[in-house]
Each structure stands twice: as C-alpha cells, then as structure tokens.
C-alpha cells in the first residue's frame, strides 16, 4: 500500500525526466564556472534572469500538455511588460495595481488565445502565430521605444529583495510551488488525459474544449508572472524584449519532457531547463562571441540540444 503510493508520486514527479533536466542545468552551470571562475559570484543574478523564462516555459508547458502549442508567449510577455509601464508613466498607476496589471494583461492574453483555440477550435499554431503579431504590434503602438523608469519601490524590491529575501528565491519558489499545486490537483490529470487521448477523455465525460480553454487561462497567468519579473529586472518597458523568448520557452518545455502531441511534460524539469538555457546564453557571452553573433550561436546550440533531447527520448 505504502509502496504503491510512493510509486505513484514518483510517476507524477516524473523522476527520470527531472534527473535529465537537472543534470543538463548543473552541467551548463559547471561549464560556465570552468570557462570563467567569476561566474560563481553572479550565479544568483544570472538565475534571476532565468525566472521570467521559467514562468514563460511553464506557460508553454501547460498548453503543450493538452496537445496544443502557444507561439505567442514571447510577444505576450512583451505586452504584459509594456502596458503596466505605460500605465505608470502616463497614468500614474504606481501602487499594488502596477503589479496586478501584469497579471490582468496576462490573463487577457490567455482569454483571447483560449477562446480562439478552446472554444472556436482554431488550430493553436495558427491562432497563436496570428495573436503573436497582434501582441507585438500592440506593444509597439503603446510604447514605440524602450521607456522607463518604473516605480522606485518596485525597482528597489529587485535590488534589496522582499523582506530581505532575494527576488530570485521568491520567483523560483513561486514557480515550483505553483507547479506542485497544479500537479497534485485533479485538473492536471484531466490536462494530461486530454493531451494523451482526447477521445478517451471525452468518453470519461471530460469537456475537452473547456480543458483547452482553461490551459490557456493558466498560460496567461504564467505569462503575467513572467512579466512581473521581467519588468523588475529590466526596470523599464521594452516593446521588443520578448521576441527571442518564444523559442527558448518551447525548448525548455521540450527538455522538460513535453511533446508536441501532448500528454507529457514536467514543470520542475521545465524550470531547471529554463535555468540551464539562461546559463547557456551566459556561456556564449563569456566565450567572447561578438554581440551580433550571439543569437546565431545560441540558436545553433538550441537546435543541437533539441536533437539530443529527441535522440534520448528515442533511446527509451
């Protein structure tokens, strides 16, 4: 009886996937240290950079699990960063509503995508590719260049931490605990069921469309959280900040065990993959790759990683 429970929890936590992903993360961090010993001093600030990506990767993962994809997470992040900064700069919204606005924008994004995919049944790749352009266009309309500053208290929060606890720790804890709450709620089982076999889920009386809609709402919540951290880190509103994040978020989810066909993927593994990828970017920087070639090199490495991830999965 006891061992049955342990086995099941192991299955839920997807230990095999977790181990792969964590070894990837540790491997990349070690490489960083080998290349440049000084990295040790910056570990926490680099990890802070990984927090927005971690949330964004969770946003991607949650729709991947139900068998859909979101091509708009990067642009969504931008919009959820730009609108609150605009509201502060031009409408003086600077109290708790400044934080809340990030979440509101995120949820609205999720609502639109969720309606298109879950309720109107538009192919998620197409729908989110289109909304991606809309979010990007809206962001540029609202702020046509990076603008700042942000409320001072908010900026200080990221410098000094909340009640002395650094924001990187708070961010990671929120990400991990949100995933755990999701994973041990009944709804996660329905998410996996829909992604794995929508027919079987339908037979069991699960409303497949509502599940897909809900997935995008949660996706929006995670996008909002990603933006909260992004705004604090860059201390400004930047209408182009999110663009490269879509690919990284997808990759982190894939390393975290997600499949394009749905029904798989683990949150903790995805979070550690996001950290690993952020250190990967730092590694490329440390190696002295010129600025304009960094994206090129990073993307090639990303493709190589993708190939390795697919190969390892095939071996199983």
């Amino acid at each position, binding site marked *: 009886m006891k061992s*049955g429970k342990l*086995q*099941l929890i192991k299955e839920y936590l997807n230990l095999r996937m977790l181990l792969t992903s964590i070894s990837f993360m540790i491997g990349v961090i070690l490489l960083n240290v080998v290349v440049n010993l000084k990295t040790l001093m910056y570990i926490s600030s680099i990890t802070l950079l990984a927090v927005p990506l971690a949330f964004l990767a969770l946003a991607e993962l949650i729709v991947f699990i139900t068998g859909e994809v979101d091509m708009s997470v990067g642009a969504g992040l931008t919009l959820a960063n730009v609108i609150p900064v605009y509201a502060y700069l031009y409408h003086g919204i600077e109290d708790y509503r400044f934080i809340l606005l990030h979440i509101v924008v995120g949820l609205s994004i999720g609502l639109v995508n969720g309606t298109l995919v879950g309720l109107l049944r538009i192919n998620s790749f197409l729908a989110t590719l289109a909304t991606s352009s809309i979010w990007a266009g809206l962001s540029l309309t609202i702020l046509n260049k990076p603008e700042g500053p942000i409320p001072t208290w908010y900026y200080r929060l990221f410098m000094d931490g909340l009640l002395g606890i650094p924001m990187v720790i708070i961010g990671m804890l929120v990400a991990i605990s949100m995933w755990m709450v999701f994973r041990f709620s009944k709804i996660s089982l*329905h998410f996996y069921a829909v992604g*794995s076999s929508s027919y079987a889920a339908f037979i*069991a*009386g*699960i409303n497949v469309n509502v599940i897909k809609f809900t997935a995008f709402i949660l996706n929006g919540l995670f996008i909002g959280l990603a933006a909260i951290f992004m705004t604090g880190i860059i201390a400004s509103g930047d209408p182009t900040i999110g663009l490269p994040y879509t690919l990284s978020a997808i990759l982190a989810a894939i390393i975290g065990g997600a499949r394009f066909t749905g029904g798989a993927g683990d949150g903790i593994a995805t979070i550690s993959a996001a950290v690993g990828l952020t250190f990967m970017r730092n590694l490329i920087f440390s190696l002295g790759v010129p600025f304009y070639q960094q994206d090129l090199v990073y993307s090639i490495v990303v493709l190589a990683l993708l190939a390795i991830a697919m190969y390892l999965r095939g071996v199983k």
Partner: protein
Amino acid sequence: MWELEGLTKSFGAIRAVEDFSCSLEEGRVYGLVGGNGAGKSTLVKLVTGVLKPDKGKVLKNGNMLAINSPRDARKHGIAAAYQEFSLVPDLPVVNNLLLNIEPVKFGFIDIDKMIGKATKFLEKLNVNIPLSKLVRDLSPTEKQVIEIAKALILEPQLLFLDEPTNYLSEEQREILFKIINEIKGGAKTTIVFISHRIEEVFRISDQIIVLRNGRLVGIYDPKRVSIDDVVRAMIGELAEEYQGYKYVGARMEAVLEKEKPMLSIRSLHIMDKVKNVSLDVKKGEIVGLAGLLGQGQSEFLRAIYGLLPYEGMIIIEGKGVKITSPRDALKHGIVYISGDALEGVFLLRSVKENISLISNLQQGLHKFVNTKAEKELAIKMIRKLNIACMNPDQPVLHLSGGNRQKVYLARGLTVNPKILLLDDPLKGVDIRTKREILNMVKELAKDRAVLFFSSDVKELLPIANRVLVFFEGSIIREFTGDQLREDLILEASIKGA
C-alpha cells in the same frame, strides 16, 4: 427499465442502425449479436452518447433522457467497455480507472483514497497490475481488463460490454462471467453483452438480441432456441443482388491443378493476431478470405505487404523471401489494396499523379517526370478501370468513394503485380462499381495470384476459387466447389467451427 426507441444512424449513404427499438429490463443480461456491419458497436455508441442518433430516443423508467455526450450518459448511470478501448496511454492505471471521478481532499487528489479504492476493486477482479504503471506499457490483455474495470467501477445501471473477452484468458473470462452474474443479481444492473463467440453469448445471456444490417431481427430466449436458430437469424435470407454471376471456380480448378503455387505462406504468426496460418495461392487463382471482422485477416495481408512484423515463411515462386517493408513487397511483385481509400490515395493530387506515383518512383527520383508518358499511363488506366472523372488532372478529392477505390487499384496495377492482396476493398462502394471491380479482379487473376479478404461473403462467392474462413487468427475451414454457399460460410464464421 430502459427503452430504446427508433434509434437511427447513417454514415453517408450507409445506414448503420435503422429504427432500432427494444426495452431492457433491470437485472438482466442481453446478448447482442449480428454479422459484420450489423450495427452493434454503433448502437452502443448511440446510447452512450459517443455518437448522436439521427432519430430516436432513450428512456429510463418512462422518462426521456437527454444524452448529448458520454458525460450525460454517465450521469444517467450508463457506462461501456468499448471494443477499441477508451484508455489514456500517458496516465497510470489508477488514474485511468478513476478518470473524472478522482477522490479529492482539500482540493488535491486524495492519493491514499484513490489507491485504496482501485486496489480493492482490482482485487475483487482478481487481477494484479501495478497501479502506477502507465497504460501505454500494458499488454493487450491488461488493457482489456482495465477497460472493463473502468466501466464497472462506475457502478452503472446500464452497462455495455463490447467484445470484452477478446483478449481475456480462460480464467479471466470465468471471472468476468461471475462478476456479470453478481452485479445483475445484486445491483440489478442491466447488461448488454457483445461477443463474436456465440456459445459465450448463449451461456451468459437471459435474452439474445439479433441485429442484421442495422435492423432488429428478433429477441430470442437462449433456453428455447438453439445456436443454429440464432445463427440463421443473423444470416437471414440470402441476398439476390449478385445473382447476375455464375460460379466460375470449378471450371478453373482443372487448369490450376498443374500449376505450382505462386505464393506460399508457411506457419505465419503475427503477434497475438494471427496464429500459424499456412496457405498456397496459384497463378490464376483467387483465394477468398472470410470470417467476422477483426479475426486477423487484415493483419495477415498487411504483414505480407511488409506493414506488420511477422514470424514464419513467405515463399514466392518457390523462393523464400523476407519482407520487412512495402518496398520489399513491391520489389517481389506484391501489391496491397485496402478498403480505406484514404489510406491509399492523395486526395488533393490529381488522378494522373495518383495513378503514376509508383511508376514514376521506379524510374528514379533523380529524373524529371515524363509528363507525356505519365498522362498516357493515366488515360490507359482510366479507360481500363472505367474511372469516372472529368479528366486525368482532376483532384481525387472530387471523385466518389468507389472511383477513389478504383484509382487506388489502378496505381497498384501499374506495377503489373504478380500477387494482389485485397483487404476488404469494396467497403462502402456502390453496387454497380462493386460489380465492375469484381469483374476486373476476375480478369486480373488470369495471370496473377489473388488473396481477397471481404467482410461481405457475397463479394467473394462469384469470383473466388475457394474461401478460407478466419476465426481468432486461424483458418478454421476451407470451402470449395459446391460448398461455396453464403449460408454455409457465414455459419462457419459465426460459430467459429
């Protein structure tokens, strides 16, 4: 008391279930039997909300039920174990058993309770499958058990079991029968039991409902009628539609005796689908494969075409060959045509391209397509098979089902095969086209070996030299000469002997 009233469902031109009415009493087991395409599975899905009936309704104790989805059916106490399974491969066994009825504590899954409930239940069923194992890693037998358990755990008042014994061992079947008797006596559950094993149906049922061509033939009391009576009801009176044909097999047999076999199969095994099948097909011979659907006929043909792994020997013109892919098969002059044109044709491409695909490939990928030769080939085949299309450039999408099937066949013929494997190729084809294709197959067989599986015996009779009946993966009977009669073959198919 459950009542089904006037249930009707069509798929395109095919009437799957027509005006089906009957009442089902509490605490009784109803066997549901019928030949291929009788509409059993469709009927189940109409009641469980998987399919929406065109007409008709379901009543419970006189009240009409609104069933628009399986979710509604569940609410009214209706559950089913489906023939093709309804399991989630990426979830553990326990979450499949309790999908959508997970116990919850403080908003979280109550793992202890969940495991407790599932363990207790599986113990009752006397099965030992680790609860945390993913369903994708289960054997077919284990999946079957879970599919049944998943329906039972809902404690339904109306339970459909569609071919539940397919993958079960002898003992497991006994356990299932014991449970059926228990819940019918205890919880007063109404059970509808579908099986191709007719003795099984006789053993477990209080009443036997016979379906034929989507219609109710009658409801019989197994204590008062014999298996033969029910089989006769399933077969019905013989159809007239093929009477235009004269039997040709006998005349050809004399010629064939001298011929060496073109294709020989020796003790072929395919996973748990086909067991120890051996046969010979001579040049000029059409060997018909019959039997109920899903008895391994398709798998048998697909394996010879390299689509499924097999054990055993395939011998072509005296030489043993190993076939692991359709490429191998084509190289040895084997062509396979299934009844699912969608599997074989490219809907958006033209008739011309579809027909000349293989011959173009055989000329090598590095060469440009010889468009003139391509067109000539297409026109030749269109004439030969009498394909109804406006011109060779018309997309196959615009063609009728029968003509799509002909395009599929035409492509197969462009490679001039020695051996033709036909896997229920006339499914859903109209009667005129059927006749045309049958004539064509007869013509083609003159210098070829043909293996022809049909779910409708009437298609085999006019052209087959002999008919082999499959049952549970083995050939159980062979019919030749005067024995080639629809009633005899159907009887053997249903009885499995």
